[in-house]
């Protein structure tokens, strides 16, 4: 069916929805609204992997600092500020635990996002190879049929 035929069928009007489609468009509109897209980000896995890596490094640093404080290498007792007080009281362990927790979460975030990227790549690769294989089989079948 050509464009001109279509326009004739539509009563010669400008291209627009077939009146019968209006309910479908309404359905489409409400379905799109229900998606509630938040804007998202381009390449979210890469962002996630970077965030995870940052947390991993930051957490490790906090844990390391906590260990040093615990050993008394940093800070001295008798100081007035709160941080030094805590350290002096031997609570450097809190920083160690906090740092390890951050590092653990960061590691998990990094692992999750890296794996997603890798598995996606793997899946796509498999699909392409599968198609290439099928094409080869089909080609071979055709060749044999012609022989």
């Amino acid at each position, binding site marked *: *069916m*050509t*464009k001109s*035929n*279509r326009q004739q*069928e*539509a*009563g*010669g*009007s400008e*291209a*627009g*929805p*077939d*009146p*019968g*489609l*209006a309910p*479908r*468009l*309404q*359905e*489409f*509109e409400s*379905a*799109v*609204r*229900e*998606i509630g*897209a*938040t*804007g*998202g*980000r*381009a*390449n*979210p896995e*890469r962002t996630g992997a970077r965030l995870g890596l940052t947390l991993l490094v930051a957490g490790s640093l906090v844990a390391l600092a906590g260990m040093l404080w615990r050993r008394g290498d940093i800070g001295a007792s008798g100081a007035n500020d709160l941080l030094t007080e805590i350290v002096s009281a031997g609570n450097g362990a809190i920083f160690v635990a906090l740092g390890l927790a951050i590092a653990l979460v960061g590691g998990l975030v990094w692992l999750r996002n890296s794996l997603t990227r890798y598995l996606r790549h793997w899946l796509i690769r498999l699909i392409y190879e*599968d*198609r290439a294989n*099928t*094409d080869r*089989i*089909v080609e071979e*079948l055709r060749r044999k049929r012609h022989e």
Partner: protein
Amino acid sequence: MTRGDADSSRARVGPVAPVLELHGVRAGYGQIEVLHGVDLSVAAGEVLALFGPNGAGKTTTLGVCSGQIRPSAGSVRLMGTMVNGARPHALARAGVCLIPEGRGIFPNLTVRENLRMATYSGVAYARVEERAFEQFPRLAERRTQLAGTLSGGEQQMLAISRGLATDPALLLLDELSMGLAPMIVAELYERVGEMAAAGLSILIVEQFAQSVLGVADRAAVMLGGRVQQVGEPESIAAALGGAYLDGH
């Protein structure tokens, strides 16, 4: 139906926003930006043909429209609602259907099994099969054949049937004519014309204008990741050769 009937029907739904609207869309793959600010819209029931040479960003544009590629800037709107960042499956379920270049069928499955894959959206298989075989009777004769062993045209018919089974509101067609004989292309575009007549909004991506001229309401030329020209299909087709050669 008279024009008055059509007008009153439209009045019930009120002013309709474009089914698809891209504004200043930038997108790409990793560090490589392919789209440098694409502006495009498809009205309800309209067929828009998007032309451009290899590497112009046509397929990437379809990827953005279908949610497979997230834009780094700009907005993608469906019926006036911004859908940046929406998941592809959510858009597909809502009514956006992409028929990709290379058809995207499962070559190791039979025609029937491929059609069965379309029932994910809750459509009964009998209905899917009925629609598919009504539109493309040739598929009925091939129902038990492996999809990979079909001819290029039949594979494209299968891909279209599977897409339409989901009752889409917006159809995105990527290089429908690729690798097909002109007669088959004409037959396929005949069907596309019928879909458009039924009110479906369609964005067609093609490298060569001739095959689409009969069905497109408007056409656009894309070069270097930007839409360079939008207008009547005939005038765009006439300017196409020069645009490809000049690169602007």
